[in-house]
């Protein structure tokens, strides 16, 4: 891999997301500053309600920040129209969901083709591109299968192929192993490692430690703020010290 990893893909400055529930204002994101470079593999950790899903939605351009600045691939997304955001999602972001979100009445290939329907030049060689993406995730023999004929791991692979088919700048995975057993989870994570080694930038939301450890960088969140943003090794070290501290406290 060429080491030009310095190219910044994501730039967040003072990003806030405030929900109004009745008269109450909930600060789901409370001033996030973050920079991601090309070919990084980042895990976002945190308890439920920590704001990691909101961060995912903002990063994926599904949601808009209430205030702050978000730049993706050099584009300022804060002032974009809905249609322009849809195009950004289509061309630069690949989503992988916990529950796969495959359309049951379509074959694996048709599912993978779907983003190309909405892309500008997607109609050229759509089939080939879908087949190539399926090949990339190791499912070239499952092209004509429907989701109900596939195992959980295979379903997630189809979903990953769908996320990759438009050659996105970032792959956003929201608890990608949440619905899988440990064996298949390991397979999927191996696939992520492989994609990462091929140059893909990956952001993954998870609350499992072992899953997060596949990433090189771990961001943990709490109450809408980044609590820590460390390389995985440093993360382990800090964990150990906090663990030790709590043990000492207890004893």
């Amino acid at each position, binding site marked *: 891999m060429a080491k030009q990893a310095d190219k910044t893909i994501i730039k967040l400055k003072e990003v806030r997301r405030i929900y109004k529930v009745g008269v109450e204002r909930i600060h789901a994101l409370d001033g996030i500053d973050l920079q991601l470079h090309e070919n990084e593999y980042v895990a976002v950790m945190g308890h439920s309600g920590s704001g990691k899903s909101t961060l995912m*939605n903002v990063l*994926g351009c*599904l*949601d808009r920040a209430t205030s702050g600045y978000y730049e993706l691939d050099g584009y300022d997304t804060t002032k974009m129209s*809905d*249609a322009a955001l*849809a*195009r950004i*999602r*289509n*061309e630069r972001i690949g*989503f992988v*969901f916990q529950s796969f*979100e495959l*359309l049951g*009445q379509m074959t694996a290939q048709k599912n993978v083709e*779907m*983003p190309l*329907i*909405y*892309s500008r030049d997607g*109609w050229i060689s759509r089939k080939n591109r879908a087949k190539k993406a399926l090949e990339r995730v190791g499912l070239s023999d499952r092209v004509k299968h429907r989701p109900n004929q596939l195992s959980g791991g295979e379903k997630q692979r189809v979903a990953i192929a*769908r996320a990759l088919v*438009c050659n996105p700048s970032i792959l956003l995975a929201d608890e990608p192993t949440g619905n899988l057993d440990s064996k298949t989870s390991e397979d999927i994570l191996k696939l992520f490692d492989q994609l990462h080694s091929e140059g893909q930038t990956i952001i993954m939301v998870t609350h499992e430690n072992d899953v997060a450890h596949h990433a090189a960088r771990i961001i943990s969140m709490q109450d809408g703020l980044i609590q820590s943003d460390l390389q995985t090794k440093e993360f382990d070290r800090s964990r150990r010290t906090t663990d030790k501290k709590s043990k000492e406290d207890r004893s």
Partner: protein
Amino acid sequence: MRILRFLIRTLVIFVRLLYQSVYLALGQIWANKTRSMLTTLGIIIGVASVTAVIAALSGLKAKILTQVESLGTNTIFISARRPDRGPLQHASWWSIRFQGEHFEGLLEHCPSVSRFGRQTWVGRYTVSHRDKSTEGVTVRGIEPACHQIDSRPVTIGRPLSVIDEMQVRQVCLIDPKLRNDLRLDRDCIGQTVLIGHDTFYIVGVVEARPKNVFGGGDQERSEIFIPFKAGLKMQRYPHIWVLAESKSAEVSDDALAEIRFFLRRTRHIKPGEPDTFEVQSLQNELQTFNEITVIVTLVAGGIVGISLLVGGVGIMNIMLVSVSERTREIGLRKAVGAKNSAILTQFMIESIVLCCLGGLVGIIFGHLLITAIDNIVKAAFDVTVLDMAYIPAWAIALSFAFAGSVGIFFGMFPAIKAARLDPIEALRHE
């Protein structure tokens, strides 16, 4: 050049989107076959009934037009009729009826009329030849001119002549059915038949009357034509009517007016009093028929409008169900880059395709319905009324346009609802 390229590009994108959406829509409809069919039932029934009505009317019109052409468009019927108002409103039939002398001098006074002939309905008689006899034969007395006006060619022998008329000869024309019933020779000229108690010589055979839509219910009966005066002699209270012919179709209205003026004078009707007779041309009748056609079409259209409205509400309902069932799919599609407009188009197209399919099935059903009715009528009454029924191209276009607009109108709300869904909420939807 740039503008052209832009236009082509836009067109290509549009066509692609349309193709995609139609393809998706058909897939969706196919996936929910039963539901789609039940949903479109309203549309199907609406379109089927309107096509059937339009086809029936068009067929009837075509049929009547051809028959009118065979009768001659210049033909005028003149008959006595009791007025709806005035002093003669309750007059006896006897005082209203035509008398032979009412028409003397008609040709001189009516320049637009080329000829006329009086007819009298003598009645139904038992006609016999040797030991064979047939009951209920229609006997009519006609003047020779009627031959030319009512085009019934004489196939064997000769038509009735002026001399037959003047000398009140006991001669007659028969139709082939009667000839067969009485077992007469094919060339039966010169043989005699008994009409009631009077002997008549056969001078000719006329062609069988073509099956007729108006007043043609009596095709089972045979017909005999005798000279007008001979007919008058056979009855105590003769019933007379007149067939006339205008010089051309253009002066048909003039001819009607002239005859009316003439008859009012010969029948001594005072100014201001209503007519005691009726003068009708086939063209007038056609006009009336056309008016009726328009009214029936409008009434049918109204009923169909209601049924399409009901069908449309059904479509809207099912589209709303579809939107809420596929909320997650909508969320996903938005997540992978579908614009609101793409989602809107997808659901609009789905509803339009659904309605147009309903329209197509409706047209087919309408066609089947018309064929079925035609066959039933044929089997039950042995008359072909609807054999010329067809669905005109404009009716097909209209049906599709109606179905399509129902799809657009009632698909709009669900489609907007789908397009406005928030992708995050949609993906979280259970």
